[in-house]
């Protein structure tokens, strides 16, 4: 699976994207966020307050209950501020 990070999440984690082998226990976007946060360091910082984090699954907005599978592209980012 491909995981993307944008804005301050990218800065805290120190990279914009990475390939991830999805553990069997991770079934949703929220579980993926928790699993990434458990890596500690910048990941823990980025996901410290998940209320400030939004997600997209295959380039569509989803909530953290959305199911994920291998081959998906998941992006994490702060609430958007365009316009």
């Amino acid at each position, binding site marked *: 699976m491909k995981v993307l990070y944008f804005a301050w999440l990218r800065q805290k984690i120190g990279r914009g994207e990475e390939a991830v082998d999805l553990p069997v226990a991770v079934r949703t976007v929220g579980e993926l966020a928790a699993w990434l946060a458990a890596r500690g360091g910048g990941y823990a910082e980025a996901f410290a307050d998940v209320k400030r984090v939004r997600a997209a699954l295959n380039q569509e907005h989803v909530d953290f209950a959305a199911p994920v599978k291998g081959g998906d592209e998941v992006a994490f980012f702060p609430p958007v501020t*365009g316009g």
Partner: protein
Amino acid sequence: MTVRVQHEDFEPGVEIARLQREDAGAIVSFVGVVRGESHGEKLVSMTLEHFPGMTERELERIAKEARSCWSLQGVSVVHRVGNLKPGERIVLVVTAAAHRRAAFEAAEFLMDYLKTRAPFWKRELRASGEHWVEARGSDDAAAARWKRD
């Protein structure tokens, strides 16, 4: 329907003229400009980051939604990314319809939805340093008022 994400500036007059046609009696345009002040400080510059691919798809989804709600002859959305200085144009929405009401409403809807759904993030450079712009609850409220069910 035109949706563009670009580094370079756009020319509002040219974009408006593109939607001019005899069955569109009303053309409404909105131009967003980078303000020179933020949080009581002078803004040095602003950098816009986006999610290439999803941004275009999301803008197209929003434009399609506008077309399903109002009878429109044309829609254009242009959004800039990269480094922008105070006073520079940042976003353009143009709507064309037979009559003005649909064009005004659709333009406002497009901006409200763009602000809460299109994956752009602003980082400001001010005297005190770099700051990511925080999303505003008032933008969510503005987008929510279009929901009817």
